[in-house]
């Protein structure tokens, strides 16, 4: 009994629902596509029912409706598929659809007349459309109706999401999108399936693939495996926010949705240093003062400080807006206030940091500037010549800015903004990065609220900077790489003499000599600075616990000349003294250091804690410009924003370093990958054999087909593929096998023919019984293992080229495309 294999395959495909069928001249869509359409329509119907129920109906009502509607659709779909096989043309479905569409309106009329119950117009229209979609999905065995059902269901989903964006609906939409995309793709593939050709021969460029694989592994290694800056910069293109009753610790935006201190307007529980937050009454001294005449118990402030008076409309607008929200979104309820989890979490967060920095770090934030040093103590600098400030409006926001000095050197990068979100700063000074140009505090448009207390240090005219206040600062970075070429007049012009004053200590000569020794080979002033800083950073050790042991000694001298170990202020002092000793103007600055290792990738903020108080040095470049120098090891200066090239080089460097650090693990993974690749056919064989064994109890017909499928797979993994359109019997005949082997496999082919074309065991080939069939299958799968097939067929000489990489691959993968030259 011989049959054409293509017919056999077609039958197999049809039985599994993976092939379009033709009844007469009408194409019937495959069952799985029809099923997907029914699923899409069912999702749309469930979504609609959720909107219609609107939490008013019971679960039973929902369940009953879902069961009736979807059950009806599935039943009708099953019936239509059965009918479609007998019909020679597409039946007249349109009148039925028309009736289904009108039914909703007619039923609505009855409901309003007799049941005194009804639906709003939009729900009625959507209900009608939903019913039509269910009917279309039921008749989706005919492709044109199927497409209409799938497309129309999208609009129902759209309606559902618009009306009720609850979690359940969002899950439905997500599933709908996944299934819809799959349906699109499968529909397209189904149209191609009948015309697909098999590759006859393929030449692959393995060396290029190999290079690409290595590059991808490198990129993954650098980007995806650690929580570094590169990773975090690539994350979060989309805000996962909403502020609607849903807590997500990984959210990047929205109030109450995450741990981030970010802007939103809906939930007062997450009140944080954000400008858009609504105003609330507090007993703390606020920066803002609003007249409130609501009938509530007034909150008496414990202390009164200078504040910005805001018009009454502000508080009215807040109330009005909330009222509006209440109408539009029924979710605005007191429920939020009952969520103790969020409250507690935010409180904990507030208690840790002095303030947060949003923007690039590391960042030095100036608080106090010192100019005179007497050998023991630094003295804070007085403000001799305050710079002029002005208020300028940029995009509707008031900015307090220094009147820009004339540019003397082209050493500045583009201005960049940092946002400081004050939490617990017990000072009225505003921490500011070096080269700050302007400040912005919401609604603060008057200069008399701030004052300059020291050069380049401004403070609010209050006891302390109010909590929860966001402050935006624009500053510029100095590109140190450009200084050497632009400036060779470091501190010699314009620098005031007090920045060059040296303390009268006995060791000063030694310090001066040391500085000269270090800088004797440097021609330019900036290179001298760099040398001193580098020597300090490399030869001295940061140790915050070291204190001066001998009070008779100058601490700086002891640090520089003897201990070579000390806290950061010793480094700063030493650097300043050494610079002054070679005639350069310098000063010491204290403030905060926003550490990059504290950067929180989830909130995208860097908290500054009390232990981040830091001292550093500034060198005078002339023309009123001070540049930060960092002599303390472990602390870095924020460089100008990197260009694309810089980022690329940094990424490459990071990748290399990471690979170097994880060399052994990487090698292990690579080895594992190669081993898995090497033995991929063995792994696949184990899996398919296990599957075959699991199906051993299945019906005889399936068992025979599964056996042949397994054997054919094994041959294919050894590179011997059954040509398209070749029957199993003919294929086995074409293989160079011994008489016994061929006879055994041909018996399996006979069974395959039986399994493909007959359902009853009475039709089994004459010398077969059920037990014999099972034995035959077992013997064949046991005998024709992957190893056995490989052993019988010699590997080929590579047919494409004699290039080394081809030969290498032929060696690596001996089972690839062997010639059929059996030993038998």
């Amino acid at each position, binding site marked *: 009994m011989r049959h054409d294999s293509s017919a056999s395959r077609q039958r197999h495909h049809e039985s599994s629902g993976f092939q379009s069928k033709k009844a007469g001249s009408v194409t019937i869509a495959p069952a799985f596509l029809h099923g997907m359409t029914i699923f899409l329509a069912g999702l749309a119907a469930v979504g609609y029912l959720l909107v219609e129920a609107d939490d008013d109906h019971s679960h039973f009502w929902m369940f009953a409706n879902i069961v009736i509607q979807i059950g009806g659709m599935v039943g009708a779909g099953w019936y239509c598929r059965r009918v479609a096989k007998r019909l020679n043309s597409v039946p007249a479905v*349109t009148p039925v659809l028309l009736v289904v569409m009108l039914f909703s309106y007619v039923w609505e009329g009855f409901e309003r007349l007799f049941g005194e119950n009804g639906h709003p117009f939009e729900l009625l229209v959507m209900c009608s459309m939903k019913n039509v979609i269910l009917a279309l999905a039921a008749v989706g065995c005919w492709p044109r109706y199927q497409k209409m059902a799938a497309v129309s269901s999208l609009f129902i989903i759209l309606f559902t999401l618009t009306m009720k964006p609850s979690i359940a609906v969002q899950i439905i939409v997500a599933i709908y*999108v996944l299934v819809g*995309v799959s349906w699109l793709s499968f529909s*397209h593939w189904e149209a191609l399936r009948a015309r697909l050709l098999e590759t*006859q021969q*393929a030449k692959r460029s393995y060396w290029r693939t190999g290079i690409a694989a290595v590059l991808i592994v490198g990129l993954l290694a650098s980007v995806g495996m650690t929580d570094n800056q590169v990773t975090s910069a690539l994350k979060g293109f989309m805000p996962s926010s909403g502020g609607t009753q849903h807590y997500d610790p990984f959210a990047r935006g929205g109030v109450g949705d995450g741990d981030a201190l970010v802007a939103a307007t809906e939930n007062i529980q997450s009140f944080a240093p954000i400008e858009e937050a609504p105003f609330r009454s507090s007993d703390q001294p606020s920066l803002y003062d609003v007249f409130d005449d609501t009938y509530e118990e007034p909150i008496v402030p414990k202390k009164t400080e200078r504040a910005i008076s805001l018009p009454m409309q502000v508080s009215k607008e807040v109330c009005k807006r909330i009222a509006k929200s209440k109408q539009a979104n029924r979710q605005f309820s007191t429920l939020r206030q009952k969520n103790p989890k969020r409250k507690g979490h935010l409180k904990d967060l507030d208690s840790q940091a002095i303030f947060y920095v949003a923007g690039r770090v590391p960042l030095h934030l100036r608080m106090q500037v010192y100019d005179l040093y007497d050998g023991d103590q630094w003295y804070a600098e007085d403000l001799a010549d305050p710079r002029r400030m002005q208020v300028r409006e940029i995009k509707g926001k008031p900015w307090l800015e220094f009147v820009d000095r004339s540019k003397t050197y082209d050493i500045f990068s583009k201005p960049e903004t940092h946002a400081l979100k004050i939490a617990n700063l017990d000072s009225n000074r505003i921490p500011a990065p070096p080269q700050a140009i302007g400040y912005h505090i919401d609604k603060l448009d008057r200069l008399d609220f701030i004052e300059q207390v020291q050069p380049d240090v401004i403070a609010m005219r209050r006891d302390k900077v109010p909590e929860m206040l966001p402050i935006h600062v624009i500053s510029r970075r100095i590109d140190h790489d450009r200084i050497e070429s632009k400036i060779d007049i470091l501190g010699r012009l314009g620098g005031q003499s007090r920045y060059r004053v040296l303390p009268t200590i006995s060791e000063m000569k030694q310090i001066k000599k040391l500085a000269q020794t270090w800088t004797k080979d440097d021609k330019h002033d900036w290179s001298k600075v760099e040398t001193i800083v580098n020597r300090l950073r490399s030869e001295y050790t940061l140790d915050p616990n070291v204190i001066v042991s001998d009070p008779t000694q100058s601490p700086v001298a002891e640090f520089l000349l003897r201990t070579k170990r000390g806290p950061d202020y010793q480094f700063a002092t030493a650097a300043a003294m050494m610079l002054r000793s070679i005639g350069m103007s310098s000063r010491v600055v204290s403030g905060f250091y926003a550490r990059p290792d504290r950067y929180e990738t989830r909130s995208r903020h860097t908290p500054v804690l009390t232990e981040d108080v830091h001292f550093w040095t500034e060198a005078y470049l002339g023309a009123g410009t001070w540049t930060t120098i960092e002599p303390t090891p472990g602390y870095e200066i924020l460089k100008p924003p990197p260009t694309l090239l810089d980022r690329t080089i940094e990424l490459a460097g990071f990748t290399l370093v990471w690979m170097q650090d994880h060399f052994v693990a990487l090698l292990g993974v690579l080895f594992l990958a190669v081993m898995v690749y090497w033995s991929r056919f063995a792994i696949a064989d184990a899996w398919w054999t296990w599957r075959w064994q699991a199906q051993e109890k299945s019906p005889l017909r399936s068992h025979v087909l599964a056996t042949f499928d397994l054997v054919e797979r094994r041959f294919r993994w050894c590179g011997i593929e059954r040509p398209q359109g070749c029957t199993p019997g003919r294929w086995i005949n074409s293989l160079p096998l011994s008489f016994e082997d061929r006879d055994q496999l041909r018996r399996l082919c006979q069974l395959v023919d039986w399994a493909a074309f007959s359902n009853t065991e009475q039709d089994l080939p004459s010398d077969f019984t059920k037990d014999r069939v099972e034995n035959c299958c077992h013997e064949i799968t046991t005998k024709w293992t992957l190893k056995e097939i490989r052993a019988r067929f010699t590997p080929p000489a590579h047919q494409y080229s004699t290039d080394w990489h081809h030969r290498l691959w032929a060696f690596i993968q001996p089972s690839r495309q062997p010639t059929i030259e059996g030993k038998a």
Partner: protein
Amino acid sequence: MSPSKLVSPRRIHSAASNVDDVLNHDFCPWANKYVYWMKNPIWLLLASIIVSAICGFYLNTAVFGLTATLVVIALLGTFWPYVSIRGIDCRVEFDKSRTKVGQSIPVKLIVTNRWPWPIWGLNLQQGFFVENTSEDGVALRVISGWSQSEFIWDYAPTTRGVYPIDVPRVDTSFPFDLSRSSKAVVCDQQLIVWPKTTQLRTIPDASESNHSEDRFTDKRAGDFGEMIGTRTFRPGDSLRRVHWSQTARQGQLIVCEHQAPAMTAVRLIVDVSRKHHVINSNMNSLESMIETVASVCQSLHLQHAYVECQIGTQTYRCGESEASFRKLMDTLAKIPHSGVETTEATMRPASSSREAFTLLFTTDQAIDSGELATGSARMVVFNTQPTNGQALSSESTVRAWMTLNAADYSLDQLDDHWRRACHAA
């Protein structure tokens, strides 16, 4: 009429069909060309994007998530094929340069993928298939990244002509069939598809027998070739032809009869004038005529007849040489599908062969128009009028040597028609 008859299933079905016809009737077919582009799902997707964006703006911002998803799907469906097709180079090669309608020929498609990623769902339709329906063409499952793949498929052209008909193009609309991007396929060869033919076993009895030195016939006694029989001596017979052994045995002079030199020569005049043919979806008299002429030519050629075929102003002589036969069939293959513009003069038989056995292939429309100068030619008439079982028009009937109905033309029946005409001639 009883109520049961009013609601009988047949009546309901009939009524439903009528309503269905009305609801699906194309009332303004002229507008189709303006609105058919909307059938592409990308426009529905764009419509849903716009609607969802409006809903997002005015009703609920949560819908923006769906908008973004739809935008991503639209962009993916548009740019994936656009980018994929730009990394593809295709070349088509034929194993042979000639074939016949319906006969398959292996065509090799070589595809090079320059992208590092695989490309799925390439489709080749244009250039090889007259009507690009969804069932025509071939599709390629996957082209691996940085690879060159070869595909061979058995191409069975359905119409005669020179292939590729147009510049062949591969296209892809993977993954969602939202947008289709295509690229020209390099094809340096031509495949000439001859018309479909059938074997005719008869030669017209009235066809002329020319003397030939290398062709002999058994049907006529002559002086050359093989001996075909014996007979009694007649005065005038050459003594060289006396069969002496038979003479001795029978006691009277017996002579041998040999083959006579003979060769069939047929002249065919083919009316391919556009105005004489009816070409529509139900009937194509030109194709029927070309298939008939090709069958006649091939059969006569196989029977060693000398064929002259006049197509338009060109006359093709086809003797023993295969080259001349190929040239004639190539010409038949290349006749435009819509016929050619001819003048009255081009349909006139050439004067040099007016005495030959001439068959004029034409249509009843040409005869009725009176534009044909047939002379002594016998006419093979293709009837383009619906007969409905009635006789043909009198003039066509009277003058036709063989009549064929273009409407229900079948090549399988040609041999039968031809045999009858040959014997009747």
